[in-house]
């Protein structure tokens, strides 16, 4: 066990272990599974149990990426929401994610500039603030059993995504952000 890994402690560990425990308290089986498994995978990384992986990120051309993204988008838009086709598409992204992200970290890494460090902190505080508002709404909705007075993001977005326009916007946003984060060069 490499305890020295704790020296460069990654805050995502706390986020995921915390989320897994939170969903355990909520009693949401599927969210416990998703965040619990993710927390375990992340912990195996922290303690150095799984250091294997591709030497670098596999590169794909724009055509195969576009085919996968457009096909997914069409299925997610035209088939029943919460239906088996959406289930199939979303699950198919797990092996794709493993393929794209499970490469080992480069030996020499970019040293973050002052601007990057500042940006990291500001975005982390922003995310924390956003999560705090969501938490207040969630706790309020549970304590008073009132989703209208304490609307969470899910409550607000659910009826919007049920409309064709809302669903199109969500699907495009989800797929484009996925390509931006995991699939292609960003600069």
């Amino acid at each position, binding site marked *: 066990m490499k305890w020295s890994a704790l020296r460069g402690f990654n805050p995502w560990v706390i986020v995921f272990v915390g989320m897994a425990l939170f969903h355990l308290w909520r009693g949401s089986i599927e969210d416990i599974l998703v*965040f619990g498994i993710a927390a375990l995978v992340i912990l195996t990384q922290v303690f150095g149990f799984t250091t294997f992986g591709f030497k670098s990120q596999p590169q794909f051309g724009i055509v195969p990426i576009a085919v996968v993204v457009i096909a997914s988008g069409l299925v997610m838009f035209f088939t029943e929401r919460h239906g088996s086709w959406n289930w199939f598409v979303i699950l198919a992204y797990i092996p794709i994610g493993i393929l794209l992200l499970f490469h080992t970290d480069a030996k020499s890494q970019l040293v973050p500039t002052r601007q990057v460090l500042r940006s990291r902190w500001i975005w982390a505080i922003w995310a924390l603030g956003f999560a705090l508002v969501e938490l207040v709404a969630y706790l*309020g909705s549970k304590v008073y059993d009132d989703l209208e007075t304490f609307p969470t993001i899910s*409550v607000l977005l659910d009826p919007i995504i049920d409309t064709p326009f809302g669903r199109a916007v969500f699907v495009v946003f989800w797929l484009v952000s996925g390509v931006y984060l995991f699939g292609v060069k960003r600069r």
Partner: protein
Amino acid sequence: MNWPLAIISSYVIFILIGLALGAVGRLRPDKLAPLGELVENIMQHRITRIALFMVWWWLGWHFMVGVTVR
């Protein structure tokens, strides 16, 4: 206290702050790193890659497959 107004306004304010931060990164990269540079930097670490992927994947699952509202 008008809770719905306070909560929804807070969401909107945070979204606007996010857009403003993105714009500052693009317009003043000497002050704040653009989002692309930030993502490039943090994605060097496998833990962060896994974490970001799971957050992204869960959003798709939560809104398109799983139970969105209980």
